[in-house]
């Protein structure tokens, strides 16, 4: 049943990605027109608009959640593809461990970056 657990979370992660990535696309591609979470005007990716979003806890948490679910969804998918080339059970196990370590490493790095950006943005707001 372990694979059932992995697969169920893979599907759930897909649904979360659909929502968060949709929000990300909306902000990135329409921010210049609608000023949605881009109050400084201009492009959504401008420094001022980025700092505005980074300073909000909702976005910091959103970045971390999106990173987590995207890493899980993507790496589980990669594992599935690799499993389909008929590997030896020992290789499959080693591959799972490598992908787990890779995923946790990237998640840690991304989380640190999101928190650091949040701290910089908050410090900048306080002057």
């Amino acid at each position, binding site marked *: *049943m372990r694979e*059932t657990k992995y*697969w*169920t979370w893979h599907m759930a992660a897909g649904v979360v990605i659909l929502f968060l990535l949709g929000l990300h696309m909306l902000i990135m591609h329409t921010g210049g027109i609608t000023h949605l979470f881009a109050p400084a005007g201009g492009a959504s990716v401008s420094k001022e608009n980025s700092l505005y979003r980074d300073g909000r806890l909702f976005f910091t948490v959103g970045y971390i959640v999106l990173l987590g679910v995207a890493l899980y969804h993507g790496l589980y998918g990669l594992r599935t593809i690799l499993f389909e080339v008929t590997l030896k059970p020992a290789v*499959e196990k080693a591959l799972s461990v490598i992908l787990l370590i890779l995923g946790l490493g990237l998640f840690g790095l991304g989380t640190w970056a999101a928190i650091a950006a949040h701290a910089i943005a908050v410090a900048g707001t306080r002057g």
Partner: protein
Amino acid sequence: MAEKKEAVRTVRFHITRYNPEKDRAPYVKVYDVPVREGMTVLDGLHYIRENLDASLAWRYSCRMGVCGSCGMLLNGRPTLACNTQILHVAGTDLTVGPLPNFHVVRDLVPDLASMFDKHRAIRPFIVRADAAEIDDPEGEFYQTPEELEAYLQFTYCIKCGCCMAACPTLATDTRYLGPMPLAAAQRYNTDTRDGGRRERNQVTGSAHGAFRCHYAGECSRVCPKGVDPAKAIQHLKRQLVLDYLHLARRRKPCAKLHGPGQGKRLENIPAAPPKTV
């Protein structure tokens, strides 16, 4: 006595030959077969063996699409040789090969042992706690027409291996259970007399189980008996997830209705007609 029909045309059979004891690799040999209307591919193979090449090997038994022995690749499609008429599938040429995704014993004879090993692993029989009833059945089990309908189509599977040969996942992942065993698992899981779903979940929910299905649907397209294994696998996935989330309805295997001779007899059943033979 009906007259023997004249040959309508000559069809060139391109048959994949391979004898592991002699050949280094499979090769194609061509035979010209005079084809009459209504002649099946199996008839064509018999013609070749009787008139052209006695060394050709294939497997067959019932000759009427019931035993599932003569599954082979006809013009790139896995199907039964006995219920495929040559004139329905071939113009001037017909390619005949062994079922893919299996080892070849010789010529057109696939080794189906891997399929039956996987089939055995999913416990393809009614599993119940009351072992005495299984060993020595002495009662009846009530099942509504709807409950029967839920699994009936999956009982039509004849284990010919055509679905396994058509499965693109099995082509790369030889450890994948495949459509036939997974459909069989769904057949028994859905049976109200059965109580072995949790045991089967250990196998069907494994790393090479139901979740590896990409839903290409080829298994259902090629099944010569009209079974829909792709549908069974999707139902199986849903059931596995519901079981994992503890959202599945708890179901006990239906109880024995009554013992022999204790059931309520219907009145006014007309007597059987007299024997004619």
